[in-house]
């Protein structure tokens, strides 16, 4: 009795494994394949699923409007999303799949900087170098925020927050508007590349540069820690005016709760950019109340509100600083694919990727959901292939993100 079942199961498995990934792709089938690798499982899945949702919304909008024109023919976008699980090993497997099995023309993601770093390390280091066997896959990253990641390969472009600039603004703002707040205490996650880099490469240099604040205590923990008593006791003893909580929601909520338990009441709390989403509002809106975070997105313009509502309606996807760039990137790339005169065949895939990469390198300024975004040129000495965009400060008030500060031109919109 069991044999036919085992045979059928083995046949099905073999069929799944041998199914050619490219079937249904390319010009002949009327699709252009684009990829995305995000943490769709594990503790960082919140960010990945939100970005996947916003990218899917952009793909839907483009396809519903008739798709895009390649070689004179209307074709549709097909999004191939893979799960990197915020795990470097899985990320390395996924990037190979996207490049060689899914055969996408470009990819969004990765989500975690700790995945992006090794993944970008596998890409070609010098364009057109025949001796460099690195992958020739174009990335237009939407989440991985660690400063300097785009320098790892000419195939990497990013639409991610510019944290050094953002925290420089925050420190300057504090110095000018609240000169009485002089002492600073800091917490960061030592095992989370983004958090540690935000402290070491963005906040610390800004505090040193502006020479106004005195750093009286710095504590660290791991991003999935569950006990913060000893570190918060240190913060209590430091009793500083400003608290830079450079940690992500999983450790921000319990640590803020511990601050409350130990009656630590800094006059101002500044959070990490990644905090500006709904996760923190769902988990600890009360203890996180008052936290101010620098961000590039808040639903403060009619367009931003419309995108946020649509993404939630269709995909239950949260529109935030990390997910909205996925939407912006897909819309931008649609235009660039049309402009790049790609052939969209399996044989021309590498050449097509290169053409698209070169188009993206020339893009300059483009329209984002909230405001204008400018891609820095390849020879930029500070952050090549990274973007500059409008910054706002948002604050948690009554279990919602509220605009704390925004540039005048955005307020007018």
């Amino acid at each position: 009795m069991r044999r036919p079942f085992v045979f059928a199961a083995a046949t099905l498995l073999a069929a799944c494994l041998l199914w050619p990934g490219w079937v249904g792709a390319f010009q002949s089938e009327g699709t252009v394949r684009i990829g995305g690798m995000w943490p769709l499982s594990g503790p960082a899945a919140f960010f990945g699923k939100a970005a996947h949702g916003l990218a899917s919304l952009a793909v839907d909008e483009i396809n519903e409007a008739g798709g895009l024109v390649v070689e004179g023919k209307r074709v549709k976008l097909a999004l191939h999303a893979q799960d990197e699980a915020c795990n470097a090993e899985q990320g390395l497997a996924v990037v190979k799949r996207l490049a060689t099995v899914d055969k996408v023309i470009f990819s969004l993601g990765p989500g975690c900087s700790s995945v992006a770093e090794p993944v970008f390390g596998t890409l070609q280091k010098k364009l057109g170098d025949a001796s460099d066997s690195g992958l020739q896959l174009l990335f237009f990253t939407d989440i991985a925020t660690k400063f300097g990641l785009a320098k790892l390969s000419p195939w990497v472009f990013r639409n991610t927050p510019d944290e050094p600039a953002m925290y420089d603004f925050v420190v300057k703002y504090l110095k000018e508007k609240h000169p009485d707040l002089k002492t600073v205490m800091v917490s960061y996650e030592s095992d989370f590349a983004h958090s540690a880099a935000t402290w070491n490469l963005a906040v610390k240099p800004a505090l040193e540069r502006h020479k106004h604040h005195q750093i009286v205590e710095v504590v660290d923990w791991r991003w999935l820690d569950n006990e913060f008593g000893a570190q918060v006791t240190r913060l209590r003893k430091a009793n500083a005016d400003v608290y830079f909580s450079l940690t992500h929601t999983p450790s921000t909520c319990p640590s803020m709760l511990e601050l409350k338990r130990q009656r630590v009441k800094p006059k101002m709390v500044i959070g990490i950019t990644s905090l500006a989403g709904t996760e923190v509002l769902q988990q600890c809106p009360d203890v996180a109340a008052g936290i101010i975070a620098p961000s590039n997105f808040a639903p403060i313009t009619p367009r931003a509100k419309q995108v946020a509502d649509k993404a939630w309606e269709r995909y239950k996807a949260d529109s935030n600083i990390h997910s909205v760039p996925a939407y912006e990137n897909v819309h931008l790339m649609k235009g660039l694919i049309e402009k790049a005169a790609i052939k969209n065949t399996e044989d021309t895939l590498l050449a097509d990727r290169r053409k698209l990469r070169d188009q993206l390198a020339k893009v300059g300024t483009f329209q984002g959901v909230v405001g204008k975004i400018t891609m820095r040129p390849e020879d930029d000495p500070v952050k090549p292939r990274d973007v500059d965009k409008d910054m706002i400060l948002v604050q948690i008030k009554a279990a919602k993100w509220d605009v704390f500060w925004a540039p005048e031109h955005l307020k007018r919109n």
Partner: protein
Amino acid sequence: MGTALFDGTEQLINGLMYGCFYALVGGGFTLLFGVLRRFNLAYGSTIMAGAYAGLIPVYLFKAPVLVLFVTTIVVSVLVGLLVEFCCFRFLRKGHELAPLMTTIGMLIVIDETIVHLTDAVGLKYPAPFGDESLALGPFLIRPDYLAILVVSIACFSAIFWLMHRTRFGRAMRAVAERPEAAQILGVSVRRVNVLTFVLTSAMAGIIGFFAAVSVGSARPEMAAWLTGKGLVVMVLGGLGSFPGAILGGLALGVLEFEAVWFLGSSYRDILAFSILFLILMVRPGGLLGSRPA
């Protein structure tokens, strides 16, 4: 009192209270290993499933904390029985390592199911013991840690009574010592195994409740964290020794708190595991475990 001594004492108090929590986790792993002689790596996910499920009546009907607590225990017991059924019951004798794989599989299934259902977002948990620490003299004591201390003492006492004063406890010890001999004497090994799962899963419910209360939310990474800590406590205390698990839990709690305070959080695990290795070198059977033959 000198500052270092004061700080050290404060961390010692916190470490002992938190150590009771670790002792409960390690105790659950130890009881299962003691009776079944097999590792149940899905124990952490049983704890997590209970913690999440407890929130259902709270979110749906605004149920009081007592209902949450009871639901957590009931669901943990059901999940524990599912683990027993899927991962242990049909495995043949002599395949002692097989449950490692089946329970890892179950851990992943439960973990990922919760991630998919919740989008990996932690769910806010009520704070039944209040949000502010109590000032006891110069020390700040967390009320939820005090509750953990009281509940764990009650749990340990109940388990000792059960093991040494009841028929089921005698059967449990007999199965743990020599299952074949116990079976010849009329003890139903399967029944004892199932009841051990019920007992440890009820403990899992209590652990899940306090794990979520202490961080203010039920979170998908709870399972991996609790599995890691539980295994360390079990090995540190001595495989299969329940008093050893209590001692191991307390030792781990104190070590972690003192390490974070005096050396920093990055030294916490280095110190804890270095001491674990040191103890295993001196006492290969763990703190209170029997010496291996």
